[in-house]
């Protein structure tokens, strides 16, 4: 797993690749909220972790003092890997104002509820097909047989990539968001197959334009000019990477919860109208995504001596468990009515794919519990969690009950 030394005190030496953090970060975050509340580490060249809702919200909304130029913490310094601000390597997630808004407006229409709702029947039939394939198995793998297959099929169709390359997409995702503690040279080297693959896809779309996001990005104009190829490339990478293991993690975490919470499972099966409320509680309680920022200049901030180019890890999942904002924050309440969760972030970088993610999560759970109204964890100890900034179960053996 992690190549880094074990952590002794998360307040002064935190590491989100540490096995303890990967396995169960919530007690760590609770401790940090009470003790710090902004934790520091010298790892990754220096990084801060605000553990409270207040700290996360303040930084997420402060695009002056923090840049989004690099959003995945790694061992490299940002300028080795990334395009400069305000564009960044994967617009708009890596962009700052004012360019950010231009890049974001380009992709929002394709991700707005209208076009996303139109995809729902296809997602539903995909889930049904996956469930058909598991038929007659006493133990199924909620991660490997189910959750991990749903988002890549949708994203590859949106980008116009061959669906049979699904396995390749997951390896790209692993490279970008899971292998975070590798040396920077290794990260650059392992990124090459992603670049090669995208170049082939871009060439193919140039030769044969069609109705998908890749052709749209190659064709669209801003101020009378087509986008720089680096921009097209970066946005395609963003959609592929951000659209896959995030939602896969959310679906897996919801199944994990239901497998060990028979009362919640029974309520969802018996009260389908509860689903929209329950989905938001899954998102709050098991928010999979944390995003990074970089400090723009040396400054005292939230009582911390921050240095230019220090990383910030924005713990949206930690903010979602802050008892100052959420009553019984550490309790999963399936019919929680008041729920201002930050699973999709806060401010101008609100997850652009949130409508898609929410629809995929809802449909995946609806179809699973329709087929299997009763199930449990087959082997709780065997469940593994993805390391890094996107957290969700990977190996998830589930026993189907009669």
């Amino acid at each position, binding site marked *: 797993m992690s190549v880094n030394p074990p952590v002794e005190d998360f307040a002064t030496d935190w590491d989100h690749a540490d096995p303890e953090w990967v396995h169960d970060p919530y007690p760590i975050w609770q401790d940090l909220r009470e003790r710090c509340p902004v934790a520091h580490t010298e790892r990754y060249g220096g990084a801060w972790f605000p553990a409270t809702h207040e700290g996360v919200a303040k930084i997420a909304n402060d695009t002056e003092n923090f840049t989004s130029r690099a959003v995945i913490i790694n061992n490299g310094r940002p300028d080795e890997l990334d395009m400069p601000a305000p564009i960044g390597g994967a617009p708009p997630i890596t962009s700052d104002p004012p360019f950010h808004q231009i890049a974001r*407006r380009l992709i*929002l*229409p394709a*991700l*707005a*509820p*209208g076009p996303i709702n139109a995809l729902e029947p296809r997602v539903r039939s995909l889930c049904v097909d996956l469930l058909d394939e598991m038929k007659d198995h006493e133990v199924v793998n909620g991660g490997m047989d189910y959750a991990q297959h749903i988002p890549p099929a949708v994203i590859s169709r949106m980008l116009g990539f061959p669906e049979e390359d699904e396995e390749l997409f997951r390896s790209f995702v692993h490279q970008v968001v899971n292998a975070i503690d590798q040396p920077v040279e290794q990260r650059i080297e392992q990124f090459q197959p992603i670049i090669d693959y995208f170049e082939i896809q871009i060439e193919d779309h140039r030769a044969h334009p069609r109705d998908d996001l890749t052709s749209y990005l190659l064709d669209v104009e801003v101020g009378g000019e087509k986008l720089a190829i680096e921009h097209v490339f970066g946005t395609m990478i963003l959609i592929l990477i951000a659209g896959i293991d995030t939602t896969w993690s959310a679906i897996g975490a919801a199944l994990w919860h239901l497998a060990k919470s028979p009362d919640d499972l029974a309520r969802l099966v018996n009260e389908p109208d509860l689903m*929209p*409320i329950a989905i*938001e509680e899954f998102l709050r309680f098991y928010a999979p995504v944390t995003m990074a920022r970089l400090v723009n200049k040396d400054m005292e901030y939230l009582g911390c001596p921050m240095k230019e180019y220090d990383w910030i890890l924005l713990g949206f999942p930690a903010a979602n468990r802050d008892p100052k904002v959420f009553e019984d924050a550490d309790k999963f309440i399936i019919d929680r*009515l*008041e*729920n*201002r*969760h*930050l699973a*999709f972030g*806060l*401010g*101008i970088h*609100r997850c652009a794919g*949130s*409508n898609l993610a*929410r629809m995929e999560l809802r449909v995946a759970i609806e179809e699973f519990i329709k087929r299997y109204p009763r199930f449990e964890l087959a082997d709780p100890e065997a469940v593994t969690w993805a390391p890094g900034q996107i957290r969700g179960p990977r190996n998830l053996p589930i026993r189907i009950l009669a």
Partner: protein
Amino acid sequence: MYHERGLVKVVIDAELCQGHGRCFTMAPDLFSFDDLGSGVVIGDGTLNDETVALARLAQLNCPEHAISIEE
């Protein structure tokens, strides 16, 4: 209740809305969305005894605090 003291309206502050989609997911009879996915109030936002509770619920779920209820 509320409307006895005058017209009650729900409003979305377009400057604050970031398109989380919580309002139109939770209360699709009161809220819809534009081409970019930002929340918009359906009609003029006037609420009655039945819809005011739903509007309050949407307000309590907006992460950006973009929804307000005006009397």
